[in-house]
């Protein structure tokens, strides 16, 4: 079994950084964890709980130029392939989210801009808690076996090539110690094991318990923060601009949020989701109903970001527990 010592994790990342950009979770000066280029902002934290923005920002940035059109030549200018990079140190829940986002972006047809960057990346997960699953699409998983050591599970050629590093040693026997599950959002984590129940309960709640949504609509500020920090929110809008000299036009796509007022509003003024209640419910409906019907699972991994960063203090775990409790009382 190939094993790497905990104290060598940062050195391994530094070695990888000799060849390409390496993004790691770091502790920023203000105490916030973020994904950042190794060495640019604070030291790496391979045992982070949540980062401010999820790793989706590397593959699906908040704003990206998609096309540049030359008006004189009447042609779309060729785009440049993204630079190769390594994302090093994704924790369990972020790993699960990235694997699920890959699946979402593949259907119905692959999202060109997302997979351009996904293909340019090598993803190394560092998993510190009990985790029985391989995560297809991740290149290398380093799973904690005891306080000092991580065992390597390569899942691609890119992942296997990292194992040539001098920091890995082959060990016949290791002292394995079971790592407990993370304590973050335990109730929601449990609910996510029964996505069908979540689907039924959330779907029922719109008409079955409208007071829940009335109450949440009063609390919610409609700011969209929950969607930006969510590793599995991916709605976007497309923006067109012209350069000041009028010679070039650009298209870019940027994160949108289904809780923002104009999300379902069409030219001419009609708004299909006029009230904040509808828009806030739509966020849950997508994650737990439409998402479930499309992909067979809830689009949530209980990463805790929306709970931590909601400026109105809405706790999605409490909301879902309440909805499920109310729903089960009926039965």
């Amino acid at each position: 079994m190939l094993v790497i010592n905990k104290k060598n994790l940062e050195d391994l990342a530094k070695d990888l950084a000799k060849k390409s950009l390496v993004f790691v979770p770091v502790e920023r000066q203000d105490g916030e964890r973020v994904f950042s280029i190794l060495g640019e902002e604070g030291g790496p934290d391979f045992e982070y709980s949540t980062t401010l923005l999820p790793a989706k920002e590397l593959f699906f940035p908040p704003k990206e130029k998609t096309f540049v059109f030359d008006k004189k030549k009447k042609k779309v200018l060729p785009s440049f392939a993204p630079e190769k990079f390594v994302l090093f140190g994704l924790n369990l829940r972020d790993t699960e989210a990235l694997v699920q986002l890959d699946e979402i972006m593949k259907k119905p047809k692959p999202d060109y801009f997302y997979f351009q960057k996904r293909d340019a990346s090598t993803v190394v997960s560092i998993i510190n808690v009990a985790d029985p699953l391989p995560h297809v699409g991740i290149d290398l998983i380093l799973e904690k076996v005891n306080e000092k050591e991580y065992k390597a599970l390569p899942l691609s050629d890119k992942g296997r090539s990292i194992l040539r590093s001098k920091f890995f040693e082959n060990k016949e026997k290791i002292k394995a110690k079971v790592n407990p599950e993370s304590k973050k959002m335990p109730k929601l984590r449990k609910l996510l094991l029964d996505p069908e129940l979540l689907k039924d309960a959330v779907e029922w709640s719109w008409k079955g318990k409208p007071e829940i949504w009335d109450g949440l609509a009063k609390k919610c500020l409609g700011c969209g923060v929950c969607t930006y920090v969510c590793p599995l929110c991916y709605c976007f809008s497309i923006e067109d601009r012209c350069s000041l000299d009028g010679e070039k036009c650009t298209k870019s796509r940027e994160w949108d949020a289904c809780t923002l007022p104009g999300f379902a509003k069409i030219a001419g003024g009609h708004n299909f989701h006029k009230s904040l209640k509808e828009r806030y419910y739509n966020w849950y409906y997508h994650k737990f109903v439409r998402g479930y019907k499309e992909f067979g699972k809830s689009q949530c991994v209980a990463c805790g970001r929306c709970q931590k960063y909601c400026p109105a203090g809405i706790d999605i775990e409490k909301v879902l527990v309440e909805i499920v409790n109310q729903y089960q009382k009926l039965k």
Partner: protein
Amino acid sequence: MKNIYLPEQVKIEKIETLSSDVKLFRLKKKLGKFKADKNKMVFTPAQFLLVGVWGYGESPFGCASSPYERSFVDIVARNTGGRVTSALHKLEKGAEITVRGPFGNGFPLEFFEGKDLVMATGGCGIPPIAALMEYVVKNRKKFGEVYLLYGARSPEDILMKSDLKRWEKDIKIILTVDKATPGWNGCVGFVPDMVNMIKIDARRAVATMCGPGPMTNALEKVLRPLGISDRRIFVSAERKMQCGVGKCQHCTTGDKYVCMDGPVFNFDEIDKNWD
């Protein structure tokens, strides 16, 4: 990997003013003709294109020409004051714009065959119906009785008048306006009297609905009283659209994507959606 967001440049071959705020744009490929499917059609009526003006954005428009026409595709755009339609309305013949698509499912034409057909539409909901009309006229023998109920704000807002004249030879057209002007002999609004004007066999009839406002009226005053079940009423739904390929989430209604699962739905398929 194919870039599903890459638009294609097309040329505006002709612009026709249909009313004070509506224009028809005839789009031509820069090279060659539009590709047809095995049924020799470029699109299925009610499918739409995402039409774009560089610098201003893309918007969905139903294809309004005959689906059998390969040398051009017509779209009809009302100037809503939005970025794309305002930009389109400023363009002149010969200008280049972009298209992506056709997207969506279109009307289930095979299911319509052998049946009576009632098409209810209003205002700018005429384009997808225009394409369906062209299909019906070309395949007239495959259909029983065919009616078009077309409502507009005023007589001058009735679009595609010359096409209506042409279609009138093969099908029955009932025009209605919200506000009559002197000289108007047609109906005012979708009125219950229309039920008596339509002679169909409800057991083997299908209906289509397009356009926002008049839909509910047409449904409650005409289609349901005629005895056409909600299952056989096909609605072309309207939503905000950005990507056209089931990703961006703007067009969802319940668990459906209007851009991929629609725009045509059985009425009973979407009327129970929470949104």
